[in-house]
Each structure stands twice: as C-alpha cells, then as structure tokens.
C-alpha cells in the first residue's frame, strides 16, 4: 500500500512544480478533492495521509530533479518515520507558507470539486472495464506469449552451451582376421565432429580424425547459407563431390571397408583441399550441379603432393551432376555423373606429364515403403569408374586406361537388422591389365541409431599383388558407436 501511495504523491508533486501557475488551480482542485473524499470515508486515515502527503510534497520539492527511485525511497522513509507532533508542525508550516493561499484559491466550490472527482472516477471505471474486456479477449493469445517468454528463458538458460558448436564423436573399431596376414585389433578411427553457424551467412563444420597413423583434420569447411540464385559455396578441406560412396566417411558406409576399386582409383575418401560451387536447378525434380577446384582428390592419393604450390594446370577440376526421381511413393532412383580433370598430372618425381581424367557414374535404386520405412527397405547401388592418364614423356602415344567399380545390395530385415552383399572390381592404375575381384557378404545389427555391430566376410581374388592384405579370405567384426551431435548431413544419406 505505502510504496504505491507514495509514488502517486511524488508524481503529483512533480506535476505541481512543473505546471505553469495558471494550471495549478485545476490540479490543486483535483488533489484536494481526492483528499476530501478520503476525509469523508475515514477521517483519521485521511488526516494521516494528508500530513504525510504534505511532507512528501516538501521532500519532493527539495529533491526534485533527482532520480525518481531515490527520492521515492526517501519519501517512504519520511512517511514511515515521521509520525509525531513535530511532523504535524512541519506540515502546518508548509501548509501555511506554501499552500494555503493557493488551496484557498481553489476552494471556491467544494461541491464542484466533488462532482469533478465523481465524473473522473466514472471515467476511470469505464476505462478499467474496457481494459478487462480487452484482457479477456487477449487471454488465449496471452498463453502463446507466455510460451514465447518461456522459450526465450529456456534458450537464455542454455545460452553458454548453445553458443558452443554441436560436438560429437564416433568410434570405429574392428577386429579382423586375414588369411594372408593374420589377425588384428584395428583401431580405425575416433572422429570428433564440430558444427555450428558462423553468422547468418555461413556455417562451419570440422571432423578431426584420430587413427593409428596419428591425428589429422579430416574435414574442415565453411559453407555459405544465403547466397542468391540457388548457389552454395564451400571452401576448406572436405570430401569432394565425386561419386556417391567415395564422399561418405568410411564408418558411414553400408559395409566395413571402402571398396578396393574406390581405394585404388580415387584414393579412398575423396578428401580434397579446395573450393566447390553447388547449384540447385529450379526444376520440379531434384537436379544439382557441382563445380570444384582442388589441390588433389583422394585422401590416400599419394601421387600428388598436397602441400607444394603448383601451376593452375596441375590442380584437379571437378564437375558433377546429380539427379533423383521418385518412381512411386516407395521406389526411387538416383543418378550421378562425375568428371574430374587434372590437366597436367605430374606424379611426384616425374619431370612432366599429361592429363588425367577420372570419370564416374553412380546409380542407386531404393525401395523405402513409406508405411514401414523403419522396418523394411532395399538399396541397390553401384558405381563405375574410368581412369585415363598419361605420365611422363617417354611413351607419348598411349594413355593408361583402367576401368573398375563396385555394386552392392542391402536388405533391411527389420528395425535392427540388415544384410547385404558387395561385389568389387578393382583394377590397378599402374598396370591396368591386373585386377582384384572381391565378394563380401555382410550382416549389420543396429542396436540403436548410434550403436552398430557389423560382421563381414570377404573373399578377394587378387592378381595385382601390390599389398598382401588385399587378397585371400578376410573376416571383420566392426563396432561403431556415436555420441553427441553427429551428422554428415544430406550427402551422407
């Protein structure tokens, strides 16, 4: 009660002092009328308030110009502490010196004053009723607003964490046995992923991968989010948009290992340092094009040194078209064609070289019954690669041509289990006549979305004999687990 009352008094005093003399009369009449009303209702209370009001008035004039909050407090203290006769004396003094003459002026018609007050109160009541009506109307809308406030409070609470990027980690570990080389606990990778928006115009993601060879930045790339004309630009180190599975991290593949054909012809994952420009065609069906330029493509492609500066003709340039059609609600097909050109390929140590062209075609058929997509499904996919290159000047007439690829089918048996088969045809790039053919049945148990066991058997008929472990019979048991935020996005689907 008190703080509110004192606030009203203050505002009155301020007004009192700021109004030009001519308008003071009206104001005094109003305030006086109010007091009179209080008088009528309860004489003792109103006299008490009258006293304090006068004190407040005095204080108001003394402290005018100071911060409202401060002298409100002062006044409350005054109001609460001065209750004795001295106060009344002070009040009387104030009244005689400052107010009485003016108040008397305004006292010409008491009745008129009361009428004015009643009218005023009527108006206020009317306003209050209208306000209640309005609030009633806004009641339902109000709950929406409350929700919004709740949400913002929630996000504020999470703010220190929310500004951190999404963090996740994948562990991919194998136990394997190869008939040609023996058994091995293969700690394949522990990959830490980070991703967040940079600003309204870009986002950034990174995958830092620890393997048995050491720790390296697998990917770290910035991607624009708001370029016009359906364009997206990407820069840094990332998996170049070549083929379908070569640009998927190894632990996300439907089988244990990167197909040997991808390993030999591309160099494993299509890791590349460079830039890419994507364009989504405004067609009613999905059609997307990529143009890119890189130092080299292929994480395991050691023929080109990634670190040395080079002339522009020794970069690798890429073009890709990717399209997709729904045959029916449940059946779909996806096509891609990739074209990577290195105008002047100079394998480390060679004095000169010709061009290298690597082409790829990928086809993927998917059966995803909408009503039971969690429990059933079939994916049949394949990629075909052609490599054509000329190295050195000794043999100017001939280009080295090699052809290879893989195909696989994966059948989803229920929510947790799937099985499949991979056929792999991997030529040697150095001696194109030789090849390795692999057959790999596999079974996958998805314990949950983030926990997966996979058993794979591979029989490889190796005529290349570059590496002992490529041939013979092999058994793998792979355990992949994910914590935190982990997604390779649309391209990893």
């Amino acid at each position, binding site marked *: 009660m008190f703080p509110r009352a004192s606030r009203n008094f203050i505002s009155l005093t301020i007004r009192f002092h700021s109004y030009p003399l001519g308008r003071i009369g009206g104001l005094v009449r109003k305030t006086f009328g109010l007091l009179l009303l209080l008088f009528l209702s309860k004489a003792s209370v109103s006299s008490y308030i009258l006293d304090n009001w006068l004190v407040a008035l005095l204080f108001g004039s003394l402290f005018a110009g100071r911060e409202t909050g401060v002298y409100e407090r002062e006044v409350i203290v005054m109001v609460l502490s001065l209750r004795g006769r001295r106060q009344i004396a002070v009040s009387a003094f104030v009244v005689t010196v400052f107010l009485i003459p003016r108040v008397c002026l305004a006292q010409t018609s008491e009745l008129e004053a009361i009428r004015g007050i009643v009218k005023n109160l009527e108006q206020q009541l009317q306003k209050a009723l209208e306000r209640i009506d309005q609030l009633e109307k806004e009641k*339902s*809308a109000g*709950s*929406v*607003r*409350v*929700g*919004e406030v709740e*949400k913002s409070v929630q996000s504020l609470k999470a703010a220190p964490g929310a500004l951190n990027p999404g963090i996740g980690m994948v562990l991919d570990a194998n136990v394997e046995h190869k008939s040609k080389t023996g058994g091995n606990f293969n700690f394949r990778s522990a990959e830490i992923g980070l991703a967040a928006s940079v600003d309204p115009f870009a986002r950034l993601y990174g995958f830092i991968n620890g393997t048995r060879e050491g720790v390296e930045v697998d990917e770290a790339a910035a*991607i624009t*989010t*708001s*370029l016009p*004309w*359906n*364009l*997206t630009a990407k820069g840094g180190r990332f998996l170049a948009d070549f083929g379908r599975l070569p640009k998927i991290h190894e632990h996300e593949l439907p089988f244990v290992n990167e197909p040997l054909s991808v390993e030999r012809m591309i160099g494993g994952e299509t890791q590349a340092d460079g830039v890419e420009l*994507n*364009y*989504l065609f*405004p*067609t*009613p*069906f*999905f059609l*997307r*094009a990529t*143009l890119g330029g890189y130092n080299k493509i292929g994480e395991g492609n050691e023929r080109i040194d990634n670190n040395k500066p080079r002339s*522009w*003709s020794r970069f690798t*340039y890429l*073009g890709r078209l990717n399209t*997709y*059609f*729904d045959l029916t*609600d449940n059946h*779909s097909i*996806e096509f891609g064609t990739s074209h990577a050109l290195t*105008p*002047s390929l100079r394998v480390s140590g060679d004095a*000169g070289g*010709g061009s290298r062209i690597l082409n790829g075609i990928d086809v993927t058929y998917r059966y*995803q019954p*909408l*009503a*039971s*997509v*969690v*429990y059933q499904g079939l994916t049949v996919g394949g990629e075909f690669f052609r490599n054509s290159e000329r190295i050195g000047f000794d043999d100017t007439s001939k280009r080295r041509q090699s052809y290879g690829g893989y195909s696989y089918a994966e059948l989803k048996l*229920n*929510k*947790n289990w799937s099985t499949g088969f991979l056929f792999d045809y991997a030529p040697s790039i150095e001696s194109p006549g030789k090849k390795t053919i692999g057959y790999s049945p596999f079974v996958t148990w998805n314990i*949950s*979305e*983030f926990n997966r066991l996979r058993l794979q058997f591979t029989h490889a008929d190796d005529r290349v004999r570059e590496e002992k472990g490529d041939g013979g019979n092999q058994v793998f048991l792979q355990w992949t687990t994910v*914590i935190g935020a982990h*997604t390779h*996005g*649309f391209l990893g*689907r």
Partner: protein
Amino acid sequence: MKTKLLSGKNWKTILLTFTFLCLQTGLVFAQQIRVVASWPALADITKQIGKELVNAESLATGVEDPHGVPMKPSFVPRLNRADALVLIGLDDELSWLPALLEVASNPKILPGQPGYIDCSVGIPVAEPPVRLDRAEGDLHPKGNPHYLLDPVYTKIVAQNIAAGLSRNFPQHQAAFEKNLKAYVTELDSWIARWEKMTAPLKGVKFVEYHQEWVYFANRYGLKRVGAVELKPGIEPTPNHIVDLVQRIKQEKAQVLLYGAQNPRVPQQLANETGIKVLRLYSSSGGRPETDSYIKWIDYTVRTLVQAAS
C-alpha cells in the same frame, strides 16, 4: 607441351554450363503463397487459415512412422521454392528436415528466419526431459512433440501459423486473422462435441507403442500403463515385453494403441493378454478417411470410444 585449360573442348563445356546457369534464374511468377508443411495435419490447418491465398503441401503423407520420414531428395526442390515452412518443432523432424534444408538453398525458411514457422511455440510441453542423455532414448530431447493429438492445443498451433503467415505476408494479415477466427470457432464446436463424446474414456487404461498419446490422455483423462518401446525410438527387449504383459494383466489395461509401427509386438501382446489393439495414426492422412485435422481427431475419438465401451 603445355595444356591450356581454356581451349578447345573445355571452352565449350564452360560456355555451356554458364548458359545453363543464366537460363535458370529469374523465372519466378507471383502466384499463390507456397507453404511446405512437414506433416499433413499442419498442411490442412495452413490451408484453413490461408484459404485461396495459400498453396500448402505436406512432405510426409501421414502413413510414416512419426520419426521415420525418409530423407528424399525429391523434397529438396519443394523446399527450395517454398515461401514458408510449417513444422512441428521440438526436434520432431530432426532426423530428416535439417539435412534437407542444408541443400535446399532457400535462406527464407532456415531456422530463425521469418519463413520458418515452428508450431510448438507456446505449447505447454509434456514430458520435458528430466535427464538429457541418450541412455533415455533419442527421440524426445525437448519434451514430447506429439501435441497435435490435443485439439485444444491445436488452437495455439493455428494461431502460430496465422502469425507466421502474417509475419511473411503482412498485406494479407486481415484475411488470415478472419480465417483463423472462423477455424478456431469451428474447432471450438468440435472440441465441445469431443469433450462430451469422450466421457466414457475417463480412467480408461491404455498401452501405447511409442510415447505419443500423452497430450490426448491428459486432455480426456485416459491412464497410461506403459509403452511397447523400451525408450522412445528403442525397440522392446524380450524382458521388457515380459514386464509389459505382467503390467497389462495387473492393471487390466483395455487398449493398445499403435500407428505406423510394426504390428508384430502389438499382436503378440494381444494374444497373450487379450488386450484390444487399435491402429491409430499420429497424423492426419494415415487413413484415406482422415484427410483433414478435424476428421482425423474425430476418427480417433470415435474409434477409441467404440473400443472402450
């Protein structure tokens, strides 16, 4: 010998690509407002509010598992052309929508932009997570997102959609508000009817496959006995099923509700306990006769009342 990059064949390739790029831009006609909704129920409500001004389409058809919509590239061009995106939020669409938005090249409908209309704003969320850990399952990290099953909350959803549309197209605000008023009035009369119809559902004990009936149960007084899933998104283990059979018998649960999920476990439970199994989808469009939000809730209410009586 020097290989020239910009000579011969390469020139033609580059020129061709460039012409193609130029051809594709700038062919946009002012037509209806294109709204893409994640689920058919939201598309229906958007149509009720936008009427002839809006062309609203849903990405999911309604028969899908509530968290298992496939990430189809054919959604990408639709998202690319959308003026606004209407979604359930609360990470309901986490497994498919964000990745599609990454490639849709449409800055208008990215999270935080005016075209991103999150219908969960202002919904009093049920089952907020007490412990954020994937040991608790992975599908409801921000609380239960299946609020469309409470028709009273759907009034908030309609308001959110109207506000979202007005935010993007202030020139049509009056029309949206008028349509919103009409829709909420219609919904209110249905809500009153459902309130009466559901009187026999008070205290009915039910088992659900996936945790999605909490809003409906809270509104109409049903009592949840258990869920078939171990945790949201985690298939039951044999032990869990044994437990559930016991609980169904003990508590005398009357109905088991499932939607897009596999009927195998519900049938098994029905055989062992005699519980009545009902297939009720968690969105409109799951059945051909439930092609609008109101029809869907009405079907759900009628089926449940019939089963419980």
